[in-house]
């Protein structure tokens, strides 16, 4: 059992989400930075589908009722177990009644706490993920929230995983389309010409960007169509939004390009104020 002593600014339980229900209006949800979440699970011998805690801007204190292996991955934070500093991206033993303290990240946005055996929260449509858009899944963590733990079975085989640090101005690969023909011919060039700044109204639904305005060549409304994580949707104000885990399954604004799936975890780690640069691939 984990008891949430302090959840920090925004903390949720996440796994791989709810694929297969988009046609019924259900967002996929799941960990925003799937790479860091999967790494955390592997480090403690879990399958990548195990549920873990996703912290936003760190700042959490968790108490563990029994001794257990954990791993902290994602945005780089100071981490303490029982007041002793421990490293990230490696398995750490937390004794019974031990307290894990995760500070504020120096870079990045989302930090994951994976626990051997995984978190056994209530499943809705097969997933424990909190979906911030639809409200499906468990509520965000609060002080006093108790999270039951599953039984671990895999082996721990790695002491430390080397992880590349987040770049100060990440370069994000983009594939054009499917609706680049709704924009003026140089719009894709404009998208890649100057950095965009991640705005403060970004969340798990999408990273809202501020920068060069992307002008449309076609007016009128696009009939709503299916969306994917990484889609760069452009509303009428011309400022792009990169869809993240809790994106709506359909949308009515044209998608000029889609972020490469290997770069999507990086977008999910960009805190407000981060400048990112797109590159057409």
């Amino acid at each position, binding site marked *: 059992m984990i008891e949430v002593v302090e959840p920090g600014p925004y903390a949720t339980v996440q796994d791989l989400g709810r694929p297969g229900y988009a046609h019924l209006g259900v967002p996929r949800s799941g960990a925003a930075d799937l790479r860091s979440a999967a790494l955390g699970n592997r480090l403690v011998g879990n399958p990548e589908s195990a549920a873990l805690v996703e912290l936003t801007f760190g700042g959490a204190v968790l108490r563990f009722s029994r001794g257990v292996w954990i791993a902290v991955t994602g945005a780089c934070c100071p981490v303490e177990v029982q007041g002793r500093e421990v490293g990230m991206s490696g398995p750490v033993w937390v004794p019974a009644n031990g307290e894990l303290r995760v500070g504020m990240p120096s870079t990045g946005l989302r930090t994951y706490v994976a626990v051997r055996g995984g978190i056994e929260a209530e499943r809705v449509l097969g997933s424990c993920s909190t979906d911030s858009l639809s409200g499906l899944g468990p509520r965000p963590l609060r002080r006093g929230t108790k999270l039951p733990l599953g039984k671990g079975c895999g082996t721990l085989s790695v002491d430390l995983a080397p992880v590349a640090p987040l770049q100060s101005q990440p370069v994000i690969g983009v594939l054009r389309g499917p609706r680049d023909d709704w924009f003026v011919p140089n719009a894709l060039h404009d998208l890649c010409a100057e950095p965009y700044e991640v705005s403060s109204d970004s969340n798990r639904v999408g990273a809202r960007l501020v920068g060069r305005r992307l002008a449309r060549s076609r007016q009128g409304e696009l009939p709503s169509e299916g969306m994917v994580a990484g889609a760069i949707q452009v509303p009428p104000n011309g400022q792009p939004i990169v869809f993240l885990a809790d994106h709506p399954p*359909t949308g009515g604004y044209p998608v000029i390009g*889609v972020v490469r799936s290997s770069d999507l975890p990086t977008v999910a780690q960009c805190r407000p104020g981060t400048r990112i640069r797109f590159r057409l691939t």
Partner: protein
Amino acid sequence: MTGILRRMGEHALLIETGALAESHRLDAELRRLGIKGVEEIVPGPESVLVVVSGGDLEVIWEQVELMVGEKGTPGQATGWEPAEVVVEVEYDGADLTAVAELTGLGVDEVIARHSGSSFVVGWLGFAPGFAYLVGLDPVLAVPRLEVPRTSVPAGSVAIAGGYSAIYPAASPGGWRLLGRTTTRVWDVEADPPSLLQPGTRVRMVPA
């Protein structure tokens, strides 16, 4: 079927169908085939999105290309018979008189035209289980409320912008409320969780 294929990133194709009925036909056909590696099939008014996970997008692209290349003749049997759902509606909604005024019809006429419409679930969106019902009598095409309600109860039957809908759960909402139903359209314990699927025909019957 027109069937222009477009890539949507590394793992999805967007097929332009040009018409809702074609989206439904393709959706049903893709589901029937159960292509390995296909994770999501999302029909829209004029498109179908196919999201692939683990499978080879090029192989699926070719399969879909062959399918949409085949000329579908109207009424051609595809083995797909859409379900019909009958929904009993208590027409006592808060906006019933406002809709009557907006349309210049009497309240009884609004009810008759709404329950007389042959609805089809176009697609779902906005919220889990929220089905956009097409086929509303065009006279009842009214704009949304200028100020949305902060909470609309589950089961509310509403219209806006030429569509009708049944609120699957309590949520904020700007559609105009005509009535309510006890039919549960959304239940996460059920399989599938949504009573209304793309293509499902819906009849509204006054309670």
